[in-house]
């Protein structure tokens, strides 16, 4: 379970994330929504131990992201936005490298398993620099799940992908969640994706968390809304208009 308590990040006078209180249950697919610059990536960077919070705390499975950062890193998989990986290395070499860094015992066995899952076996020995964006994103996911993490953090995983690539990634994430029970924490601003994949959502605006609910509860609370887009704008717009 992921829990944050008053998690805050300040850069001098600017507050990027302001007292974030969030709970993500095990096995959930959590969509973290917000406009560009809302604080999504900063939050994710704190949760993945990349940057330190200014105040507040966050735990994953009871491990503090600051004090127990090595244990937290053992539990998480991470795919940043627009990752290129090592172009001169093949897909397998890239995965071997990241697998070994994640202390995977039988790397090659895991690579075969993951690539099978992603339907990517025929590209294993091709250099990554020859891959399309969709293919690179699949290898990116492969490196993130190679060690079978408890929680998978994704930053705009479908951004810049064509409809087929978007659908492929969506299916992969659903498969990982269903087969391994991996919790997925996904930063996105694509509302259509959220409706198709997420069980829970959080909306952040100007560093403040506006809502964190299960998708079904949210729809229940906004019965008159025809789409998630309408719900999103009524929540975000309501705050911005205040």
């Amino acid at each position: 379970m992921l829990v944050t308590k008053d998690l805050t990040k300040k850069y001098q006078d600017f507050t990027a994330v302001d007292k974030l209180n969030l709970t993500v249950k095990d096995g959930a697919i959590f969509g973290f929504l917000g406009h560009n610059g809302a604080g999504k990536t900063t939050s994710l960077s704190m949760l993945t131990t990349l940057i330190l919070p200014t105040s507040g705390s966050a735990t994953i499975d009871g491990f503090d992201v600051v004090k127990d950062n090595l244990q937290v890193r053992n539990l998480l998989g991470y795919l940043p936005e627009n990752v290129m990986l090592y172009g001169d290395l093949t897909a397998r070499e890239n995965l071997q490298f990241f697998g070994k860094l994640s202390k995977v015992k039988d790397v090659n066995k895991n690579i075969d398993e993951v690539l099978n899952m992603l339907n990517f076996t025929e590209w294993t020995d091709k250099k990554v620099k020859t891959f399309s964006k969709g293919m690179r994103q699949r290898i990116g996911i492969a490196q993130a799940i190679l060690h079978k993490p408890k929680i998978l953090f994704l930053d705009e995983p479908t951004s810049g992908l064509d409809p087929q690539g978007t659908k492929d990634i969506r299916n992969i994430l659903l498969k990982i969640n269903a087969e391994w029970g991996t919790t997925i924490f996904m930063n996105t601003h694509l509302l259509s994706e959220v409706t198709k994949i997420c069980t829970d959502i959080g909306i952040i605006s100007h560093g403040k968390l506006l809502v964190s609910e299960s998708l079904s509860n949210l729809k229940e609370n906004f019965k008159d809304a025809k789409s998630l887009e309408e719900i999103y704008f009524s929540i975000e717009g309501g705050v911005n208009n205040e």
Partner: protein
Amino acid sequence: MNSIAVFAKKEFKTAYKDKVFLVIVLLFLLMSIASVYIGSTTKSAEMQAYQDIVSMAQSQGSAIPTAPEIYPLAILSNIIEYVTMIGAVLAIFLGFDAFSGERENGTLRLLLTRPFYRDQIITGKLAGAGMIIGALLSVTLLFNLGLFTVATGMIPNLSEILRLALFMILAFVYMMSFYIATLFVSLKTRDRAFGFLIMMIVWIFISFVIPQLADTQRNFAYALSSVSSTVTQVPTDTAISRIIELLSPAVQFKNISSDLLQVVSSTAFDSVFSIIKKNILAIVTIMLPTVIFLIFSYTSVQKENVL
């Protein structure tokens, strides 16, 4: 396998898949071979000239001149120039995108979410670069020892092997000092091309500008002394020019190497220890900035703005 070994192995693998790097390595090896060839043919020509003079003296019944001193390792002396120039560029090429490249590729964020300490990335990259430079210098050493034996018909004695080994260790330290400085610049710059440019400027400054400044100072001192006519014997060197040269690890490397490879006749048969003792300040000049950049690199990698 621990994280440091994983990094080192990956650095090694990536470098030898890089065509530009391979071209520089090939150039390095070819030049070292060429330098041995040029050195040995020059020495052979000198010996031939001496033999001709001896024959002529014998035929004319005049006294036979003393044979010139032979400094076998001097045959390899051209390697000093290649290590100073190409070796430094090679080290810069190895390190210029060590971090900025990872940042641009998005892989740095992936690395920093793995279960190991951040300083292990630096240690791993250093180990990888050390393996690459070490392998290159070892191959060069073996090549040159072989060529040396073929060219001179002599098998190097223990003292010569010690001098050569020490030269290679010094070359390793010199090249690693450029790598470490480049690594630090790469940590601090967002754009890999900009980092490369900075290091090339540093290289030009160290290899050409500072030595040129020292030379100018030397010439200036000579002119002054001539005009004032207060000194009968004009010094060819000055304390100031030597201080200026202390700012250039390249000059210091050349000075120590010249002693080790018997280019300087006054130290040609000194023991290795006395050469080290004589050049201790020069060794510190090479080591000190390296240690400083190393400490800065280990400190910088812990900071958030490394991302």
